[in-house]
């Protein structure tokens, strides 16, 4: 539950490498990540993929929890609109995430820390480009402080 204090101190001293959580839909984006791997396209090692059955499985609480547990950025990848394997899941996910991201922005959390991308199973190159770009964005934003327990910070 608590942010590990020694951990925080360590990242402070070292060069900042952002921790990124990527929720990937099993049917498209996870396969896209696979393809990226087998085609030897690189993406940052600190992108931690969590496989979900469909983009709409991702509850706003998951995103907040990821930040609590130390993520600096959270990205959700699903099938392209119209291609969801459960027909319409990603349409609902799209509305939910739009509202959630807007609320985070309203609370003063940096808007670049969250993102949604549609990546199909054939788009290994897009997957790797997206992750590299997102990692760069988060690197620029610096460590996530606002959605963590601030009292652990110095």
């Amino acid at each position, binding site marked *: 539950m608590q942010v590990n204090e020694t951990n925080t101190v360590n990242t402070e001293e070292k060069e900042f490498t952002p921790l990124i959580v990527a929720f990937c839909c099993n049917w498209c984006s996870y396969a896209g990540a696979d393809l990226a791997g087998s085609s030897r396209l690189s993406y940052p090692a600190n992108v931690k993929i969590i496989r979900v059955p469909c983009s709409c499985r991702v509850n706003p609480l998951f995103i*907040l929890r990821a930040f609590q547990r130390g993520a600096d950025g959270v990205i959700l990848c699903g099938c392209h609109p119209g291609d969801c394997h459960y027909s319409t899941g990603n349409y609902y996910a799209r*509305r939910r995430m739009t509202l959630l*991201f807007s609320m985070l922005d309203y609370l003063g959390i940096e*808007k670049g820390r969250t*993102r949604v991308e549609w990546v199909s199973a054939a788009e290994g190159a897009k997957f790797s480009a997206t992750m590299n770009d997102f990692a760069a964005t988060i690197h620029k934003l610096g460590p996530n402080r606002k959605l963590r327990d601030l009292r652990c910070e110095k």
Partner: protein
Amino acid sequence: MREINEMLKKKVSELLENGTADRIIGWQAGEFCYDVTPAVMRKDNLDELFYNGFCGANQSKYLIQESLEEGKVLALLKPCDTYSFNQLVKEHRVNREKVYALGIPCSGMLDVDKIKALGITGILSIEDNGEEIKVATMYGDKTCKRTEVLQERCKVCKGKEHKAYDELLIPDEDAPEVPNGEDRFELVNKLEAMTSQERFDFWRGELSKCIRCNACRNVCPACSCRTCVFDNDNSGVAAKSNADDFEENMFHIIRAFHVAGRCTDCGECSRVCPQHIPLHLLNRKFIKDIDEFYGEFQAGEDDTAKGPLTAYTEGDCEPSIVMEKGGEA
């Protein structure tokens, strides 16, 4: 007000007498005259029933439980309560057949804190008659203007029309007009125009006051789950105060998110918060976004329309719209 009270008592006893309903959710005086709570009443204790500017409690939520019981219950619904009522009927949380809804007029509810802020203390009784509020205090009689002491939500009243009822106490056309006309999004706009850091500081200031009493959730007619996520013992956040500012943020984001698209902006959450946190500013952010992104929507307008989060269109905006349209960075 006295007139309406007489009419109401007469009507209610008539309806209970002729068997239209066998009990009523009314309001009961508490320790102080401004400390009114909803209460179930029957024929024998009906004389305790009254209606005044402190009967703000939205009865719809109580109907969830009451409509599960034997017999029919009589509900007194102010115009804004009927939105919540519709929403609950739509979500199959209230059994419409078990409720007899009597629409009652409302001329705006009063905020005792605003009365006290005018320096009126030691309040013994409050007489609510139209434009002027007469307050009897330990230090003599005082008066104040109704418009000065209206609740925040009443200043942005949705209007005097009842959206659902079986019967109206007086026709909506003859009901008093609530002096309103303020823009409910004014403060939301203001916050959006601030810088990200200012917004962050503003919300830290507000949300860190939260004592996690859960009153905002308990009173909310849209929060109608039998078991709430915040009651999940395995979540680590159940039945306890917020341990750190992450938990404060999380509770408030999730509370507001779970009612997004279903919140009627009834204002109950802000009314009951003992810490005076402006919860309506979170709800209204969602309402404003929904209006802007997916078209104007008022929850509870009717009992059939699909809510914005249970619907979609293929051409919906992408979440990246927040990057362009969101508040100042």
